[in-house]
């Protein structure tokens, strides 16, 4: 049912980016998102778009899939952009009605927002399309290790995260099954007023919650039976190793950053 939700899904094409260490990819993606906020003028945005474009081509995944990822968020983007255009001031005024005004400053702002949205969404999509969710969890776990010094329960958090990731598809299946079962009992989910539609969620939400509680209970018992102790140091089954290509990726990010800095100063 959910071929629309691209964000968070993984497409195996075994590209260079697929083989990178998840830590390298997380850092690069995080860093890129920060860079997006440092971009200022046409050339800096052009540069970031160019770099992201290269990364997207390198994933060997069709641009249509990226477009699908953005399509889901188009409502949100339009809304934010509309607000920006109508309520910003500055520059030449093209049209005015009370507090609403379309100005050159507002249009510029709107363009900046669109660029930021597109760049950030696509950058994170590159990350999730090329990294399996469990790899992602392992990567985050290691990256978060230093937080242990601040008494953050990293072990427990990452365990919760990997369990959550593991159960997303299971729960999705469960939702489909429960929805089908209720549809066959005469519920029509695409019909009626807003209130009626919200009421129709009860026959889905209640069974889903109940089965999640049951599942959690069973899983906890099974984990205890297999000797899981949250406070103990655990060894890793999934070992990820930093390789030369990962260093190369980091160097590439550094080059991108320096170039961005220079473009910002000179142009």
């Amino acid at each position: 049912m959910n071929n629309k939700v691209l964000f968070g899904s993984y497409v195996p094409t075994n590209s260079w980016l697929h083989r990178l260490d998840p830590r390298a990819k997380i850092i690069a993606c995080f860093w890129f998102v920060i860079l997006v906020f440092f971009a200022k003028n046409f050339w800096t945005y052009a540069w970031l778009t160019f770099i992201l474009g290269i990364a997207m081509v390198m994933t060997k995944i069709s641009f249509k899939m990226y477009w699908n990822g953005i399509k889901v968020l188009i409502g949100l983007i339009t809304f934010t952009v509309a607000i920006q255009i109508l309520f910003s001031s500055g520059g030449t005024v093209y049209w005015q009605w009370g507090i609403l005004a379309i100005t050159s400053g507002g249009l510029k702002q709107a363009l900046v927002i669109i660029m930021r949205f597109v760049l950030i969404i696509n950058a994170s999509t590159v990350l999730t399309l090329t990294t399996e969710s469990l790899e992602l969890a392992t990567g985050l776990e290691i990256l978060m290790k230093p937080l242990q010094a601040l008494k953050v329960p990293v072990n427990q958090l990452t365990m919760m995260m990997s369990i959550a990731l593991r159960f997303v598809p299971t729960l999705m299946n469960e939702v489909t099954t429960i929805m089908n079962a209720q549809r066959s009992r005469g519920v029509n989910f695409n019909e009626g007023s807003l209130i009626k539609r919200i009421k129709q969620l009860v026959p889905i939400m209640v069974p889903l919650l109940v089965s999640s509680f049951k599942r959690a209970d069973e899983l906890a018992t099974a984990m205890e039976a297999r000797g899981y102790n949250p406070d103990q140091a655990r060894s890793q089954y999934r070992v990820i190793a930093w390789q030369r290509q990962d260093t190369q990726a980091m160097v590439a990010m550094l080059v991108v950053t320096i170039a961005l800095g220079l473009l910002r100063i000179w142009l």
Partner: protein
Amino acid sequence: MEAIRFKDLTYIYQANSVMAQPALTKITTTFKQGATTAIIGHTGSGKSTLMQLIDGLILPTAGSITLGDLTITNETPVKELGKLRRLVGYVFQFPEKQLFAESVLDDVKFGPLNQGLSDEEAQERAQAALEQLNFPLELLKHSPFELSGGQQRRVAIAGVLAMHPEILILDEPTVGLDPEGQAELLTLVRDLQAQGLTILIVTHQMEIVAQLADEVMVLNHGQLAFQGSSQDLFLQPDLLADNHLRLPKAIQLATNLGQRGITWDGLPLTTAQLADQIIQMWGDQDE
């Protein structure tokens, strides 16, 4: 009289995309009215997809399904499917998962109320369905989540029966039940058969096939591998092997004894029939 007719029925998951996966390919067949058909085949052979198509939960990619005077094709508007779901009652695998209401009675009433019945009518139907399933009526006002697994399943099945379907789909109804619960469920299916319901039962248990089914349909990789009586199926060891199916225990024993020189008066399908024939032979020997 036929209850269901498939014509070149094809279903492809995520059709028109790179991830397209054919689940059913060009199935043409009919199901008799008032008969019980067992649908068997190994996991992933398309059994559940077929059942969802009959209930209008998904639309065929190509071909058509005809139930009574309703014909469902790829172009059928979603609104029409409601009519289909009035005819068909679908008991999903582990149906107890779909319980949600505050009381047992409310949950069973849910289906009839959705059909537009009045509250009294729905209540009558709910009680009748629960009685038919031997559900202890003093628990009517209890929460379904307080009940045992077996009782929960009976409530869920009652919820479907209360809608008075003409065609009943049972997807693995006995899975996860204790032997007593399984026997009870089989008795219920026999009662429903006597009432003249058209029943489709998806199962992996060949004993159920032998005991209940008037007809058997074997699916293999989305294609119809066999349709006919269970006797005919069990007499074809090659067909069984090709479809990863095994014989029911009674027939297995009868076949083994047959290889040692015992001749049967027709293949005994159930343990009872097997015992009858053995007793008969015993008697003949004594004379």
